[in-house]
């Protein structure tokens, strides 16, 4: 439906643009995949549309820069000169280079500009700022030192300026426990277990490389509440971690036993089938005896965290108390849920990474579903509740990406998501819902520049990011890496000046 609408709309909009006295002015908050795919489709669909992309960081690209693991292999196809990450970055850079598009880095929704400011200045505001917080486990000891969310750890090794000082202690222990078995959990486990020489030629942050070089961690446990049939990781990522050189992988054969309900799940799910097959193969083939000093990866199934145990000092974590679980069918959804059995065991460790899901952060004036951690919406149109608790559409306000769908999917998932939101915007535009009631056009980019000037706020244009990019790549070349990331706010802004 969206495709047809866009197609027909492309024909109409050409005529429409010449009729309307002013172009459609769109502001997108967030410059990760959600933001950029939305900008790309918006610019393509409407000849006259003007799109401004804001980001609170001086650097664009969101999780493409700060989330994708640095050790992910180069493209397997030798005829392509670039990694797929660079392909995506190039694509987004082309969008930013469009004369109808402007990037505004170092602009924070909330402190630099408010949501109501933006709604006054733009015909349509699209929120694409993702999920920058974490789901909380809510178990005792969660605030002990040495316990981090996977997001913090990932931002730390990817050089995100908010996490450059996290300094996880990787020298106090030989064991790390990762709670969760999704792709992010696999990422962090892999970074902890990769031979250091394989990390040296990546764009991993320098401070992380130094820490990892001195790390004494040799064992990583990936702990899941349910079984291998329910593991959230996907085949590609599981295959990758199972293929690490000199890594002893431990999977209990007993955990591979399937119930009738498990068999049903496997029948219906291609992804689950292929993941389960990989687990089965790994359980049988990795049987050789431990080589002294060999690193170990343990997949623990049917365990949920009951509490975190403090060390003697009382400040840091020394272990996790796990409760054994079994699966019960949740009648309504048909899904199997993990239920505690009252049997406990303690797992000693000095580092815990919680990888149980990201969560979006609410913003003043924006409707928010606390339970799901997303903005309520219908095909990208933001919904709020009126006095009588009826859902109404917030005119001119849209949402895309993780903030809309929850923190799931791959980068390309945002492509379809953006298509849906853009289709909603175009439909509303066609129906006259985005024309300002006052009659005079909204100020758009000029309005934003005025607001920023009034506040003496210093924004970073795309050319500013290009200076950062050039500096990082030059420094990287000296060290046989694709780039050496600049990891503090001060240095990033300094590079923009230089």
């Amino acid at each position, binding site marked *: 439906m*969206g*495709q*047809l609408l866009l*197609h027909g709309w492309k024909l109409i909009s050409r005529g429409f643009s010449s009729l309307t006295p002013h172009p459609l002015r769109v502001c997108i908050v967030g410059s990760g995949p959600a933001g950029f795919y939305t900008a790309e489709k918006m610019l393509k669909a409407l000849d006259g549309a003007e799109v401004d992309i804001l980001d609170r960081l001086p650097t664009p690209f969101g999780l493409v820069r700060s989330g994708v693991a640095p050790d992910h292999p180069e*493209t*397997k*196809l030798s005829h*392509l000169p670039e*990694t*797929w990450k660079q*392909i*995506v970055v190039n*694509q987004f850079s082309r969008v930013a280079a469009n004369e109808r598009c402007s990037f505004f880095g170092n602009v924070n929704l909330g402190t630099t500009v408010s949501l109501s400011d933006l709604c006054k200045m733009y015909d349509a505001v699209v929120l694409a700022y993702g999920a920058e917080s974490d789901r909380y486990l809510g178990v005792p000891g969660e605030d002990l030192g040495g316990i981090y969310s996977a997001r913090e750890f990932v931002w730390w090794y990817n050089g995100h300026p908010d996490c450059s000082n996290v300094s996880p202690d990787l020298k106090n222990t030989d064991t790390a426990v990762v709670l969760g078995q999704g792709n992010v959990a696999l990422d962090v486990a892999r970074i902890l277990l990769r031979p250091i020489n394989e990390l040296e030629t990546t764009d991993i942050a320098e401070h992380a490389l130094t820490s990892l070089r001195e790390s004494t961690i040799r064992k990583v446990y990936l702990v899941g509440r349910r079984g291998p049939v329910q593991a959230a990781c*996907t*085949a*590609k990522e599981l*295959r990758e971690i199972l293929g690490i050189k000199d890594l002893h992988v431990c999977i209990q054969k007993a955990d591979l036993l399937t119930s009738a309900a498990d068999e049903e799940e496997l029948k219906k799910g*291609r*992804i689950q089938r*292929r993941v389960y097959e990989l687990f089965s193969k790994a359980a049988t083939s990795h049987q050789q005896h431990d080589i002294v000093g060999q690193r170990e990866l343990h997949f623990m199934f049917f365990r949920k965290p009951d509490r975190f145990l403090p060390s003697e000092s009382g400040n840091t974590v020394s272990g996790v108390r796990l409760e054994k679980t079994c699966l019960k069918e949740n009648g309504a959804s048909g899904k199997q849920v993990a239920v505690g059995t009252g049997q406990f065991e303690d797992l000693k460790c000095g580092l815990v990474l919680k990888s149980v899901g990201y969560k979006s952060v609410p913003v003043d004036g924006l409707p928010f*579903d606390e339970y*799901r951690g*997303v903005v*309520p*919406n*219908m*095909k*990208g149109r933001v*919904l709020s509740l*009126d006095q009588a608790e*009826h*859902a*109404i559409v917030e005119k001119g306000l849209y949402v895309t990406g993780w903030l*809309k*769908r*929850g923190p799931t999917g*791959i*980068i*390309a*998932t945002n*492509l*379809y*998501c953006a*298509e*849906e939101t853009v289709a909603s915007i175009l439909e509303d535009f066609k129906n006259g819902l985005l024309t300002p009631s006052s009659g005079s056009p909204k100020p758009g980019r000029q309005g934003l520049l005025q607001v920023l000037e009034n506040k003496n706020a210093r924004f970073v244009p795309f050319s500013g990011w290009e200076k950062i990019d050039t500096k990082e790549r030059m420094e990287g070349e000296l060290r046989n890496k694709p780039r050496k990331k600049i990891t503090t706010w001060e240095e990033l802004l300094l590079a923009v000046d230089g």
Partner: protein
Amino acid sequence: MVLSRFSQLGARFLKESGIVTGKAQEESSEQKEKITVTFVDKDGEEKVIQVPMGMSMLEAAHENDIELEGACEGSLACSTCHVIVMDMEYYNKLEDPADEENDMLDLAFGLTETSRLGCQVIAKPELDGMRLALPAATRNFAVDGFVPKPH
């Protein structure tokens, strides 16, 4: 180059009536280096194109303005160029997908028994006449269970 319905018929008429002879010879030798592929979009609209040997279906689609996404530009890092081979006979003529392709197909929307990634299907003589459908389903992105009351 995409020919509209009319010019397709016109060209065929000219060829068959023998009026354009020298050109017909050129075209038939050209045809040996190209195969005919039909793309069918989710509304059932068909587009017949010529694909030179060795070109992927993704590239061919882009050269002919067919709306097939290729977010990772053929580097096996996404599933947006997902196509459905409409005839089992042609599907079986393709080499089995590698693990890497299967990993990406796992994530494709509307996956079928004869689904492949367009960037991995390369034109060869045996595929002449192949029909490829663009998937109809895109994921439903509505927030689970949230149904706004009509106002």
